[in-house]
């Protein structure tokens, strides 16, 4: 079980430059597989242009109470990158002056940012349509100071989206750490108890499924049926939607793919499943990702690869939705992860 981030272990893959090198060379350099750009060009989709911005996804910091084996953020207790209150204020200003209707807080564990509650309260006052917090569930149980999070979420009408890689303990703990399954079940029960995830409840509770290994997720609807049946039958737990998210070949998951000698087969599977229809709805088309330091990216994955958004407004303090609409989206081979099969986004399948 992992205890430390790649960065803390001084693993070469903690460098975004090194990751981009891996993705640009090998099977993509020798022509065995086409680059993502080549595939977009073949389908007249290059350069990839955005639609109007609807979602602001804010990374409040890389600190997390868990060290998950597949984490694309390389998050963990040893990561100190945390968004400041000043940058949070810039985010609030950006939302106020734009047509953004969805706020999506992520991390790390966003709740570990010391100004998390202040930010949620301020953002709640603006009154966005959909206010998401990506909570890893165990944080609710981790420490007494987080035990009231379900109530706090409820009071601010937060839409909770949580990771749950499998309905069995073994698979969940292998990916996310020992004890995570039981704690997640307890946290889900707490959320259900105050109304989250119940049929006809306005308190939205969705789960995220990531495959726990070098394979792609299957049909999201059939997975949702399986999850719903087992979680209800075994634990009496209810939730609304399941989002199936493909693991992108970056950071810790890339490290795992290379170490287990699955990298080439995985990339073949992604390229083979390339679906031009999924490209039309990938999340970078309507989302802007804000890094903990305020820099803007086309998505959270590009943030982790330090592929900064290219355009006249590159920092949240300069946010301008009209200017941002003119940019071209930054791409590399990891983008195949979002365009495979039914596609993948932070809201699950896109086709």
């Amino acid at each position, binding site marked *: 079980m992992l205890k430390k981030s790649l960065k803390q272990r001084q693993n070469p893959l903690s460098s975004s430059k090194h990751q981009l090198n891996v993705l640009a060379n090998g099977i993509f350099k020798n022509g065995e597989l086409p680059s993502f750009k080549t595939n977009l060009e073949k389908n007249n989709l290059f350069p990839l242009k955005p639609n109007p911005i609807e979602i602001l996804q804010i990374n409040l910091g890389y600190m997390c109470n868990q060290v998950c084996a597949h984490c694309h953020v390389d998050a963990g207790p040893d990561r100190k990158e945390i968004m400041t209150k000043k940058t949070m204020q810039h985010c609030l200003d950006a939302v106020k002056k734009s047509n953004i209707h969805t706020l999506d807080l992520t991390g790390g564990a966003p709740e570990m940012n010391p100004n998390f509650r202040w930010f949620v309260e301020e953002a709640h006052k603006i009154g966005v349509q959909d206010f998401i917090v990506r909570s890893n569930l165990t944080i609710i149980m981790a420490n007494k100071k987080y035990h009231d999070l379900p109530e706090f979420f409820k009071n601010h009408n937060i839409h909770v989206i949580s990771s749950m890689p499998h309905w069995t303990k073994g*698979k969940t703990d292998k990916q996310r750490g020992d004890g995570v399954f039981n704690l997640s079940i307890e946290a889900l029960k707490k959320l259900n108890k105050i109304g989250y995830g119940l049929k006809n409840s306005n308190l939205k509770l969705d789960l995220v499924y990531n*495959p726990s*290994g070098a*394979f792609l997720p*299957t049909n999201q609807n059939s997975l949702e049926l399986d999850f719903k049946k087992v979680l209800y039958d075994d634990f009496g737990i209810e939730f609304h939607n399941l989002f199936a998210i493909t693991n992108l070949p970056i950071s810790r998951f890339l490290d795992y793919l290379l170490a287990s000698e699955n990298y080439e087969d995985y990339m*073949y599977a992604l390229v083979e499943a390339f679906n031009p229809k999924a490209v039309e709805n990938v999340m970078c088309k309507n989302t802007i990702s804000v890094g903990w330091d305020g820099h803007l990216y086309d998505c959270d994955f590009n943030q982790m690869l330090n592929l900064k958004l290219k355009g006249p407004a590159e920092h949240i303090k300069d946010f301008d939705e009209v200017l941002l609409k003119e940019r071209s989206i930054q791409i590399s081979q990891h983008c195949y992860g979002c365009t495979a099969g039914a596609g993948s986004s932070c809201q699950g399948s896109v086709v």
Partner: protein
Amino acid sequence: MSKTYYDPADLKKFGKITEWNEELGTKFFDYYRKVFEDGALSAREKSLIALAVAHVVKCPYCIDAYTKDGLERGITKEEMMEAVHAGAAIESGATLVHGVQMMKKYDKLSM
């Protein structure tokens, strides 16, 4: 030349068999795709049957393919191993049931 008969990379090239006989290759892959769609049996159930048969016919490509397919579908390792045992039981049963033929022949030839 490859030093082994089986090369895992050949599985990715399976579709190439169509290049030498387009009509039959295409018909086979259309049939194959249709077989594994949801029907009276779910695609999940068919995946487990395919995994069991893969072991019985001892096809390493099929074992790789349907282990991965099972993982993608969220099928547990316990379910997969039970499917393999179901295949193995039929296979060993098929051997043992011939024992009746042996017994009959034995009795017929014996005084």
